């Protein structure tokens, strides 16, 4: 019997010929990642073990959540990470000015690659499945232990095959694909399982679409969300990844516990209503207009250049509606710089958007866009849990960049087609 992409990566890193779903394996890790919230407790755990770091080139420390520091305690957290990085000569430590959102900069800089096994003390580590890696979120104890041992245990996940057919229409992005999928299978539809994408539809998805889709595998409970390696992946990693890598492909007779089919050509712009990412609804099916007070465009889900391009094309010649504030957050310094060069930042500023330095900030209710009681936000982020972005009585509607920009202009949840 054949293996899935996830099984092949886990088998190789466990030093085994083959593994199957349910098996417990200990694997050697290619990259371990933490941020300014999760690294400090990981460092405490690491120090209690009393060993040196396993490999200073295989640890990434990205202070992106509450940085530039939002308060004194957050500054102390960043200092713990900085001191640790200096002491252990961590190669992939990113200081303010070079730092971006972790799941934007690691693929962008080729730090994660096809066939690699990555764990991160951040649930959206599953993003790297987009470049054909197996990557999954863990807590600070796992991460602290991994910084010392270079290993972690895994239960080989059962796999759900997501078969994509058709071609993605104009005005639809990866966000509409993943929100539709989560709406279909539910927020625990992939619990403990990997989502393995396949089918002819994959080739109509850009790398940005794929990064958005893999990023939100966790919102269906998934352990990973992995794409096959093709010419689009090859073109993306070509000038970024400096080390040799080995892509994986699923065997034709790989075993799946479930097959889910999505015809991309039928997709419409969707939003996820409060308070679960699976409360998906087509925008055209919204009966009563939903007035909003805030829009966020950015995050590890939708903070890449193509996302800003989509938003800029919708915003061009328009202004943010009265009574709405729109905050645009490029995901990395490179994204920011290129967006500036292409004139997107001018378009945002002319439209009365606020443009921020890269940070996770508002997505998790950290800072830079916290909401008051009763306020509603359309956000290109990944979670709309109760109180996620501020007051417990505020509401988050998740959407892609087309709908987010259109909603900012019209002051209500809207599609880009409605903006004229």
């Amino acid at each position: 019997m054949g293996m899935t992409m996830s099984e092949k990566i886990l088998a190789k890193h466990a030093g085994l010929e083959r593994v199957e779903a349910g098996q417990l394996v200990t694997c050697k890790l290619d990259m371990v990642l933490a941020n300014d919230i999760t690294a400090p407790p990981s460092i405490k755990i690491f120090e209690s073990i009393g060993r040196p770091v396993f490999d200073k080139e295989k640890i990434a420390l990205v202070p992106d959540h509450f940085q530039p520091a939002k308060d004194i305690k957050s500054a102390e957290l960043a200092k713990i990470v900085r001191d640790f990085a200096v002491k252990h000569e961590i190669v992939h430590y990113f200081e303010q000015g070079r730092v971006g959102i972790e799941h934007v900069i690691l693929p962008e800089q080729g730090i994660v690659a096809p066939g690699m096994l990555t764990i991160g003390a951040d649930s959206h580590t599953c993003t790297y499945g987009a470049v054909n890696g197996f990557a999954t979120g863990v807590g600070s104890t796992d991460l602290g232990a991994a910084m010392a041992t270079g290993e972690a245990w895994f239960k080989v996940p059962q796999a759900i095959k997501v078969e994509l057919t058709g071609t993605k229409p104009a005005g639809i992005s990866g966000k509409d694909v993943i929100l539709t999928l989560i709406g279909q299978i539910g927020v625990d539809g992939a619990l403990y399982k990997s989502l393995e994408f396949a089918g002819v539809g994959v080739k109509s998805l850009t790398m940005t679409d794929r990064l958005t889709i893999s990023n939100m595998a966790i919102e269906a409970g998934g352990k990973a969300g992995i794409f096959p390696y093709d010419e689009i992946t090859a073109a993306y990693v070509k000038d970024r990844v400096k080390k040799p890598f080995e892509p994986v492909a699923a065997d034709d007779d790989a075993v799946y516990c479930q097959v889910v089919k999505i015809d991309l050509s039928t997709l419409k712009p969707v939003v996820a209503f409060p308070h679960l990412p699976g409360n998906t609804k087509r925008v055209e099916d919204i009966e009563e207009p939903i007035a909003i007070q805030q829009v966020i465009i950015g995050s590890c889900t939708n903070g890449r250049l193509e996302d800003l391009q989509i938003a800029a094309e919708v915003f061009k010649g328009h202004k943010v509606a009265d009574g709405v504030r729109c905050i645009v957050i490029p995901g990395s310094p490179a994204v920011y710089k290129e967006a500036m060069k292409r004139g997107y930042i001018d378009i945002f500023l002319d439209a009365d958007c606020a443009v921020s330095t890269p940070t996770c900030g508002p997505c998790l209710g950290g800072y830079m866009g916290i909401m008051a009681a009763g306020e509603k936000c359309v956000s290109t982020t990944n979670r709309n849990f109760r109180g996620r972005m501020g007051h417990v009585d505020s509401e988050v509607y998740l959407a892609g960049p087309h709908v987010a920009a259109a909603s900012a202009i019209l002051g209500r949840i809207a599609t880009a087609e409605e903006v004229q």
Partner: protein
Amino acid sequence: MKLEGKVWRYGDNIDTDVIIPARYLNTFDPKELASHCMVDIDESFAQNVQEGDIMVGGRNFGCGSSREHAPVAIKASGIPVVIAASFARIFYRNGINIGLPLLEIGDDVEKINADDKLRVDVSTGVIEDLTTGDVFHAHPLPGFVQEIAASGGLIEYIKKNK
């Protein structure tokens, strides 16, 4: 290990933002985290929880962020065990790693009510509801994960096995 305590009952999809909102993540001090635990959906929890009380949730308990601060906050509140229909996987891993036992009992969880008194044997997974007389059996932990749990967490396990 046999435990007895009163039930704090919560529903499906209790996410880690609810267990400990991100606005309190600028610290990782367990006591301080415990003082804000569950605050957005149940202000009375942090004020009234007693050492030894038991938390019971529905499906997909602990979904969302990987923040280990969430099981740490629950444990530091004095809760020695969490029972749910199912757990989100990162939360489940974190619970085992920090020595907070988590017992999965599927739909049986519907029979447990707020304020019931439970007796829980963590090593056998047998749960007795002393209020209703019901007895439930949790799914056993797989393979060497049992050893991690029995060691009191991953770090003790690594130290023992180095």
